[in-house]
């Protein structure tokens, strides 16, 4: 049987390269519609009273930065705008640097924020699920000091935090395990704290079932599109909004090539049938 002639995939690579690079350089600004799951996250944070404490866990590494870093920045910004105090932590070793990077990026926008009062970085702790369980039993035993070596007893933000009881909500930015699932199983299911999260687009189907009647997950930011939607909701377009233009063009190119591939296939099949007759 004659094989369908396929376009050399290097042409496709070249088009994808331009399709992604050009919108990042020359912003198109395609309009974006917000979805329900993103709204749920926004409403959770927006509805928190001033002075609440949020636990943000950075459970990803540099490989997932393009998708998760923009949403992390948007969520942290929203928390700071609502005067929600943030306890940063990480269940992945490189998550600490991710958190540090976000704080560094936002420092100039919020010069009045004080470390130890408005936010704190507790650093990374190995152990995944076991560590999260231990935090629920005795937070201070798991994190006796922050990342800089200061005792948490000296930090005003940590006053009264002995487990998850005085935490307003938990938010995990997750690229795998340990991540959102573990936080849901412990922080929400065992301790009843509202839990939300952001994940890469490819992991979203595994997390979506947790958005249910029991509210195991209060909304989900899935992928770059959700990050861009969140930036739209907080009215601060950032790298995710820019990236969405690139993602949209790239998807369009893929769809066009799929169409070309199908047209070629059916044309060849028709020709074969005619030739066979």
């Amino acid at each position, binding site marked *: 049987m004659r094989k369908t002639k396929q376009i050399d995939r290097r042409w496709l690579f070249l088009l994808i390269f331009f399709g992604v690079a050009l919108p990042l350089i020359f912003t198109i600004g395609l309009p974006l519609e917000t979805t329900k799951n993103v709204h749920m996250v926004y409403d959770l944070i927006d509805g928190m009273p001033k002075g609440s404490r949020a636990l943000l866990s950075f459970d990803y590494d540099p*490989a997932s930065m393009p998708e998760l870093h923009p949403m992390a920045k948007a969520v942290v910004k929203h928390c700071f705008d609502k005067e929600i105090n943030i306890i940063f932590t990480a269940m992945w070793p490189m998550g600490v640097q991710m958190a540090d990077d976000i704080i560094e990026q936002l420092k100039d926008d919020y010069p009045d924020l004080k470390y130890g009062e408005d936010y704190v970085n507790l650093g990374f702790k190995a152990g995944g699920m076991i560590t999260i369980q231990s935090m629920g*039993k*005795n937070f201070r035993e798991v994190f006796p000091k922050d990342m800089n070596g200061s005792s948490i007893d000296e930090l005003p933000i940590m006053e*009264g935090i002995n*487990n998850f009881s005085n935490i307003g909500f938990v938010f995990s930015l997750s690229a795998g395990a340990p991540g959102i699932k573990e936080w849901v199983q412990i922080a929400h299911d065992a301790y009843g704290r509202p839990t939300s999260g952001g994940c890469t687009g490819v992991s979203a189907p595994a997390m979506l079932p947790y958005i249910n009647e029991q509210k195991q997950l209060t909304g989900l930011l899935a992928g770059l599109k959700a990050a861009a939607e969140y930036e739209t909701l907080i009215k601060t377009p950032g790298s995710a909004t820019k990236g969405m233009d690139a993602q949209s063009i790239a998807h369009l190119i893929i769809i066009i090539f799929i169409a070309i591939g199908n047209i070629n296939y059916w044309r060849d099949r028709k020709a074969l049938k005619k030739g066979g007759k």
Partner: protein
Amino acid sequence: MKKTLIFLFIFISCFLFSQEISFNIKDKPNDDGAALILSWDTSQIEASKIIIERKAPDSDLIIITSSQEVVGTFEDGTDIDPGIEYNYRLSALDENGKVLHIVRTTASSSSQWFNKKKISLLILALLISVSIVYYIFSAKSGKDLYIRKIGGLESMDESVGRATEMGRPILFIPGTLDLDDMQTIAGLTLLRRLAQKAAEYDAKLIVPVCRSMVLSTAKEVVKEAYMKAGRPDAFDPDSVFYLTDDQFGYVAGVDGIIVREKPAANFFLGAFYAESLILAETGFSSGAIQTAGTAMPSQLPFFVVACDYTLIGEELFAASAYLSKDPHQLGSLKGQDFGKAIFIVVLTIGIILEISGVHFLKDFLALH
């Protein structure tokens, strides 16, 4: 006058009694006796803050928590040992820090021998395990068990033969997770069979690994396979080597091997994350016949699209039984199928009950 005084006395007494705050402590259920659940209700008095202190025998009074919640609960899991009586004191304060009311109580925790929250898990686990064990041992009867064809496993011999004919090596990747993951062990099980075949056909085998523990095990598995095939001399210890723990460093290394060595057959059997498509596409571009198998649902679509054969989920774990044709192992597959039947029945009943508004099955199966 007398009646008025009595009425006033009763009224004031009621008022005073109704100002009592409730402070209850109970043992946390289904644990090892390391926690107590404290609950309070100070809504009857206008308290702004509560402070709870605890005193163990032979120790001082320490503050264990403070809260601005009028009604709340707290899990005290710090230094609690089962069987020891702890004295608790709750102080309700007003906004100026003045103590409005103090309540004292004692409590001790106890350790449970069975976690009642997991009873549904126990029942299901027993049902499935007993059925698997039953079918394993009943396979002794010699009855032929039907197992459907799994294309990826049937093609293993063909792949090895192809590699031998072309004089090109076979590449085997046992996943990117460590030895504590069952997918890695399933991958290594298949490595043994593949290595034996490669030894018989005299084909070169390349096994780059991502974890040091997997390195030791894989080396041992390949060596034993060569010995079993009667070709201990052909075993090259450097055919199984470590690259790096880092996910993308590993995939970069494997891609380099694929591009340079141009293996005729690639096997990706184990746990993979985002690197799955990079590996599969690079392997496709080199013209190799590719067999993949993983239980990671998010990576299966990439393997299905880019590989010639894909072992989906349980097929990876069934591979060992499928290839060995050992009746005991095949019996365990039948037990798994029985487990699947249980799931389908429970699922169907559950859907019907939920639609009817009856939630007891869902509540029973929930693990909280």
